[in-house]
């Protein structure tokens, strides 16, 4: 609406907005700050906000103790891998659901979502046994597969809602123009859906990056991602808050930065067609 917002209202909202934003962001900020403190300063009362001796020793310690880069690479490979594989499987499925819907399409979609309701703890042992027999324990491939399966319903749903917004007659035009089904999907649908696909990609990278059950329980040394890295810093004997903060900062920084840079994109896809 174009009626002028008075400067005073604007300032009021600025104050409230920043206050609320700051409160919500505070735990993360605090973690980052703590990561630069010595262990002693980390638990000092009264808390020290900015005026403490800044030190990078925690990062040094964390890096000398565990191979951050290896965990990081595993996280990257696993989250990217599972997302890409998921997209590969989901794009055709979403195409079918969006452009050749049947009476059962909605049921299939809900069924897919319902597979996410199986509590992971309950099926750990069966999966573990299957993985052991298939030699997939502690492999990136195995995790890529598991996370693909875990996130596939979400991917399919997101793409489906996104594809539905693409006018069907463009695909028909491609068909008239002589494109085969594969070409229709590769040359027309996919490029048109790039924003939707990108946001699906982002959301799923985030979900996969933060997935902490399967990644922890199906890996040992070789394929362990950052969630396992964190598990070696939570509550050891002795003071650990600064080190935990440093490790946490390292673990969330990549995804946080990626998320921030791509937030506009992310928002579009996040809506699951909730916004018409």
């Amino acid at each position, binding site marked *: 609406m174009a009626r002028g917002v008075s400067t005073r209202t604007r*300032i009021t*909202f*600025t104050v*409230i*907005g920043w206050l*609320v*934003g*700051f409160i*919500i*962001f505070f*735990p*993360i900020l*605090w*973690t980052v700050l*703590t990561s630069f403190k010595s262990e002693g300063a980390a*638990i000092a*009362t009264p*808390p020290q906000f900015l005026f403490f001796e800044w030190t990078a020793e925690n990062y040094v310690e964390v890096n000398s103790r565990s191979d951050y880069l290896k965990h990081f690479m595993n996280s990257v490979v696993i989250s990217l891998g599972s997302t890409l594989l998921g997209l590969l*499987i989901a794009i*055709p*499925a979403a195409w*079918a659901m969006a*452009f*050749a819907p*049947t009476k059962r399409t909605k049921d*299939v979609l809900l069924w897919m979502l*319902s*597979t996410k*309701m*199986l*509590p992971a*703890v*309950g*099926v*750990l*042992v*069966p999966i573990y046994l*299957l993985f052991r027999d298939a030699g997939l324990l502690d492999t990136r491939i195995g995790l890529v597969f598991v996370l693909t*399966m875990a996130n*596939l319903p979400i991917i399919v749903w997101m793409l489906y809602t996104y594809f539905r917004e693409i006018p069907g007659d463009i695909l*028909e035009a491609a068909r008239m123009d002589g494109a085969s089904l594969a070409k229709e999907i590769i040359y027309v649908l996919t490029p048109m859906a790039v924003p939707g696909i990108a946001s699906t990609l982002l959301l799923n990278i*985030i979900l996969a*990056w*933060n997935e*902490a059950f399967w990644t922890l329980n199906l890996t040992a040394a070789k394929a362990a991602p950052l*969630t396992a890295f964190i*598990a070696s810093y939570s*509550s050891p004997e002795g003071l650990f*808050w600064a080190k*935990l903060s440093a490790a946490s900062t390292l*673990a969330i920084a990549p995804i*946080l930065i990626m*998320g921030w840079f791509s*937030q506009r994109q992310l*928002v579009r896809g*996040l*809506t*699951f067609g*909730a*916004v018409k």
Partner: protein
Amino acid sequence: MATLQTRASARLMMTPAVVLLLLWMAVPLAMTLYFSMLRYNLLMPGMEEWAGFLNYRFFLTDPAFLTGLLNTLLLVGGVLLISVGGGILMALLLDQPFFGQGIVRLMVIAPFFVMPTVSALVWKNMLMHPVNGLFAWIARTFGLQPVDWFGEAPLFSIVMIVSWQWLPFATLILLTALQSLDTEQKEAAEMDGAGALSRFIYIVLPHMARAITVVVLIETIFLLSVFAEILVTTNGGPGVQTTTVTYLVYVQALLQFDVGGASAGGIVAVVLANIVAIFLVRLIGKNLE
């Protein structure tokens, strides 16, 4: 649209996703069903024997089960309430023009990127701890008795932590929904004499109904399986105050290593989750169309 040809290809294209998910669901589910009928403890191999519904009986009659069920509902409901309610307020706030809106938006969505374990650890140790935590310090600064969060209001504390993680998600979706509201509609309501509050209740809120539905559905799916936060903070206690069904299954599976019990618990959880899902779909499903 759709000729026979396209319909046939559609079926073909659905196949990988459906088959894989079917396998992913059916195989473990079948194994779980089978295991749930066994007396099967990982720590006592070679002693497996057919147990019929024994595991179910024990899981369902566990005195913690009913509390667990209630806690699960409270947890899910509480987080939904806070994240949706808060999300609406946040969305309304972020929709106002103010200086540095973009940065505030970044700050607000940040928690969504934090691993659950990390956020639980940070909240428990650095913020909510009644002696060393920041909240305690703030309380004391104001001359108040620090709150012993996990002792006095354990479930609420967990709800807070989990809500913090999910608030950004709700905020983002609701904000987008809010911004998609046709300005003419708002103006029409204004011409019709609706004040800010009436406009919110009669125009904005109904417009966001669908977005709210999506938030509720997605969050429910994820919230039903929350347990890392519980494990890290309260271990399901004190008493069984923060024990949820998922946590109970966890106890069976990873503390007792009772595969039979855990499987039975898993099956029960699936059934419950589906009841919730059906209920949800009934309640709000038409908003999804």
